[in-house]
Structures are given as C-alpha cells and as structure tokens.
C-alpha cells in the first residue's frame, strides 16, 4: 500500500442538517503522479470529496492518508494542497505575479527566490511577460493558467481541479485540456480533477472514478470504464448504447426476449440472467453472428457518422454508422444490424 500516494478510506460526509450523506463510504487510492478524473452527474458529491481532501471541510467519517499518514486533522493552511477553482479565485487586488507569489510569501520564501520561482511558474504555463498585469486584464484562458501556476508554484502534495474547464468556450477548452495534461505530465504532480464531462474525463485522465449519489460506482482506466462498465449507471453515463437483458441458455449464448439469441463472450452460468450493452459504433450494417433486422425509426446525420434507431422486435437499437458508405439507410427502410460477440459488453448479472 505504501506505493500509493493518496489513499481515501471509507470516506463519508454528511452536511449538518442533511438527512443522507453527500459522500457515502468512498474508497480509492492514487499512485504518485497519476491523474484521476472524478466523474458523475451534478450533486453526486465530487466537489465535496475534493474539499475534504483539501481540508476546506471536515470529514464525517473515514480516513484520508497521504504517503501513509492521516491528514484529516491538519488544518487547510498547513496541508500544502494546490487547488484550481472553477472560477479561478485569483485575488483581484494583486497582480498576476503577486497572486502566484502569494503561497511562497506565506511560506516565508525570500523575495529574490520568490521572484525567480514566480518567473519559472509563469514560463511553465506560458504566461511569461504577464506577471505585472492585473487579473482583470487577463482572458479566461490566461486566468486559468495563472490559477494553475499559483497552485503549482508551492509544489503541492496534490493538485486538485474543480471543473477547471467549464468556464471556457469549446475551442479554448480543448486547448486547455491538452495544456493541463501536458503541465501535469511535466511536473508529475499527483492530480485529481472533477468534471461532469465524459469526453474531458476520458481524454485527460489516467483513471476515472465514476460516482453516483455519493457512492463510487466504478474506478478504472478510460478503456475499462468505457468497454467494461460494471453497472447500468456507468454504462449509460459514459457514452450511449442499447441495453439488453437475457437468460443465458448455453455458454456464450443468451436468449433476449423480443429479440432473439445473442452471442457474447464472458462467463455466465447457463440459467442465469444477464445484462448486456452494445455501443452504437459496434453495430455494423449487414449480416453477421448477431444479426437483428428492423425498421429505421429515426435518423440523425452528424457529418462523420449517421446515428440511426432501429426497431427490432421489442427493442430499439441505436447504431452509429460511418457516412462514407455508398448508400445510407433512410427513415422507414428495413435494415439488418449485426454485432460481433466480442463487442457485446456484459454489464453484470441481472436480478
């Protein structure tokens, strides 16, 4: 366990006067240098976890350990945590350089060294030459960079981001996404960032922790989360797909009522019930092992792909088809969709 930089053990937070906990027995751990995305719908407790790690709010129960030592009793100003707020929280009465130097000043770092380290930090976030500006004279993206520099310059134990990109427009968001990832790679600082944008989480993080209503649903690499979701919630929160429930009739074969036999890979004993998920882009047009015919009910053209909804038996299957095909299905057409057994995701055994 010593190889884990941060460990969170059965963390619980119940706000005063609240009926149920906002964070409910969450356990996870991060190796040094990892970037973890905390993902989940609004109100699921992401910010609450971050604020407990930062020391801004007390924990109700459970442990937060850094390098094996409990830190729950350390007051916020001694915890050495870097945090980038959604609205940046740059001090409006100070210049950019004063903002970045603030943490060093609080640590009693001398003026000369401070200036030098502030310049380095400005350079790291590509803000060289902006040090003497007022915060209000920076663009949103530049404020974001300044906030990151301010958190990094103190060499924090962890870098925490609370929805760092949600105040930026789409183009800048993509740019800052790469930028943040790059800065994190170069500094090697163990980071957690909160988001409710799955693209952001999938593209930026080493691992994802998906939360729902205060509980941790699943934690894993982007690939594991996307291709092997363990619960319906994770499967539907990350990407779209068609859910199917069936009774396993033989190894690798399930009978899905109202659809037919579904071939899959995975170990479920015959006689049991199981939940399956097929991602839209796994379906192909034409005959195959798992072939289902139906009428196209709905068509959305999206440039690269064509999303169709097909009524097959009692089910509505969603498929993303590449648009370079010669003829594309239209609404009302009869089509056959198929999916390879390997591309059928076993979500879990159903009750």
């Amino acid at each position, binding site marked *: 366990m010593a190889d884990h930089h941060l460990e969170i053990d059965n963390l619980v937070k119940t706000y005063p006067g609240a009926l149920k906990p906002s964070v409910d027995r969450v356990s996870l751990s991060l190796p040094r240098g990892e970037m973890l995305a905390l993902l989940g719908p609004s109100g699921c407790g992401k910010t609450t976890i971050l604020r407990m790690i930062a020391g*801004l709010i007390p924990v109700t129960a459970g442990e937060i350990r850094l390098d094996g030592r409990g830190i729950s009793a350390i007051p916020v100003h001694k915890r050495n945590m870097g945090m980038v*707020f959604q609205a940046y929280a740059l001090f409006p009465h100070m210049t950019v350089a004063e903002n970045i130097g603030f943490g060093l000043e609080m640590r009693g770092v001398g003026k000369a060294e401070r200036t030098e380290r502030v310049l380095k930090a400005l350079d790291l976030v590509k803000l060289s030459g902006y040090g003497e500006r007022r915060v209000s004279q920076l663009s949103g993206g530049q404020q974001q960079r300044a906030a990151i520099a*301010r958190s990094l310059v103190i060499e924090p134990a962890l870098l925490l981001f609370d929805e760092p990109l949600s105040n930026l427009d789409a183009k800048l968001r993509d740019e800052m996404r790469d930028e943040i990832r790059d800065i994190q790679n170069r500094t090697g600082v163990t980071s957690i960032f909160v988001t409710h944008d799955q693209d952001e989480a999938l593209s930026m993080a080493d691992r994802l922790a998906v939360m729902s209503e205060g509980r941790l649903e699943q934690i894993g690499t982007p690939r594991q989360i996307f291709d092997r979701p363990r619960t319906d919630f994770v499967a539907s929160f990350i990407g779209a797909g068609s859910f199917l429930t069936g009774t396993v009739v033989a190894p690798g074969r399930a009978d899905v009522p109202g659809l037919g036999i579904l071939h899959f890979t995975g170990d479920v004993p015959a006689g049991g019930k199981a939940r399956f998920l097929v991602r839209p882009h796994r379906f192909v047009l034409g005959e195959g092992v798992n072939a289902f015919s139906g009428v196209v009910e709905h068509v959305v053209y999206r440039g690269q792909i064509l999303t169709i909804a097909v009524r097959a038996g009692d089910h509505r299957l969603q498929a993303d088809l590449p648009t370079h095909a010669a003829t594309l299905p239209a609404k009302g057409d009869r089509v056959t969709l198929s999916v390879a057994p390997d591309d059928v995701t076993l979500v879990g055994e159903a009750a």
Partner: protein
Amino acid sequence: MAAVRHSSSDGSSHRGMLLLLLLPGLLALLTTFLLPLIWLVRASFASSAVAALKGGDWTLESYRTVLYDPFYWKVAWNTLYLGVNVAIFAVALSYPIALFLARTKSRWRGVLTALAVAPLLTSSVVRTYGWMVILGDRGVINAALQSSGLTDGVIRLTNNYFGATVALVEILMPYAILAMLSGFGRLNTQFEEAAALLGANRFRVFTRIILPLSLPGVLTAALLVFVLAISSFVTPRLMGGGRVFVIGTEVYNEATVTLNWPLAAALSVLLLVLFGSVILIYQRAMRALET
C-alpha cells in the same frame, strides 16, 4: 448606407425617449437642488438679508468675515475634527458587524441585517434625546457611577464634543453598515479559501485578503458618515447644549438668530467646499483601490 442611416435615426429616437424619461427627475433636481444652490451662492455675496432676497450689490464681505475671524476658523476646525472622529468610530464599530452580515451563511442573515439598520426607523431627534437621558448630568451613567461610589461629582458627558460625537456615532452607524454591505461586493469566500490553501492562516487571510477587498466599502462608509456628520445640526445642537460650535449650528445661528443670511450662506458654501474636497479625495482613493 440606408441601413446605417436607419439605425442612427433609431438611435436618436431612442435617446429622445431616454431624455423624456429623465425629464421629471431633472426638473425635480433643478427646482429643489440647483436653483436653491444658485440662490445660496448669490446670497453669500449679498450685503444684507434684504439684498439677499431682492438682489443688489455683490460684496465679498461675508467671505471676508469667514476668512479673517478666528472664530470661524475654529468652527471649521471643530467641524472637521468632529466629522473625522465620528467617521473613524462609526466605521470601526460598524466594520465587524457589516463583515459578519456579509459573510454569514445563516438563514437569519436577512433578519439580522434588518435589525442592524432598524434604528433608522426612529428619528435622529428621538435618538439624540435618548442619548441625553443616558449621558446627561443626572443620566443613567452618572447615576450608576455615583451610586457605586466610583465618582463623587458629575462627569460631564453632554453639552460638549464628547456627547455630540457619541450620539452621532450611534446615529450614523446604520448608514455605515449599509454603505459597507453595498461596498463589499468583491468579498468572496473563494478568495479566502484560495488564500488558506496557499498557506495563509486566519490572521493573514484577514490582513491580506478580507481587509484589502473590503476597503472600498470601508471608504464609502467613511465618506458617507463624514459628510452626514459635518452637515449635521440637530445632534450637535442638542448634545452640545450651545457649547459645541460646528458649521451646522453656526449656519442655523446666523440664519435664524442673528439674521445674517449672507454670512449663513457663505458658511454653507464653505461646507460645500469641504464636501467637494472630501469627495475628490475619496474618488482618488477609490480609483487607486480598484485598479
């Protein structure tokens, strides 16, 4: 071209509409503020009350009196001194209250704010009489001191600048609180949290974040209290018992007792000049704070 012309004519009709809407307000300002002000300035250059009413020669006589009579220098000094003292104490006492009200997350915040400014519901004359009862020679404080044997004689708490200052501080505190609350817009707990995360303890969060960010509100409150204090008349008059000489009381004296309207007008102009300079200083300071 057509589009441009269209939009410009549109803009001017819009401006016309605005002017029309402003008209009642402008008229009210003109008749209740600007015209009396012009008349006041004119009166300060008149040779007598009659001349002030009817017009006539222009003379600098009143200003000469104000400038060369040491008594009026003393009055001006007293006024400034009272104003500064009242501003300092009212702001110092209101600051913690306003800070608490601005930062609290209690659901009683609205009620507490209303309570803090509730004294505005009673007239300042009534509150001044209240202070006379408390601070008077036979008032609550003196009675308590004497019956407890701490003092033999009467301690003068009224009929002097002390009494006027105390009463004005209390009377003007609600204004200070309101002005601060409206000037604390830049306070935000996120800044405090960010500072704490960067290693600032509570004391430094206060000195480095809360205090500088609340300074515009403090300044606005100080200006408001100062202006209200130096232009006050009822409280210095009642609490001063004729022994407190400030511009407000002297204007009243000259206007109603001595009937030297030109002098009263000249003193009022002096007060206006004081206002003007203080507001200039305030604007400078605000600009320095906000860039």
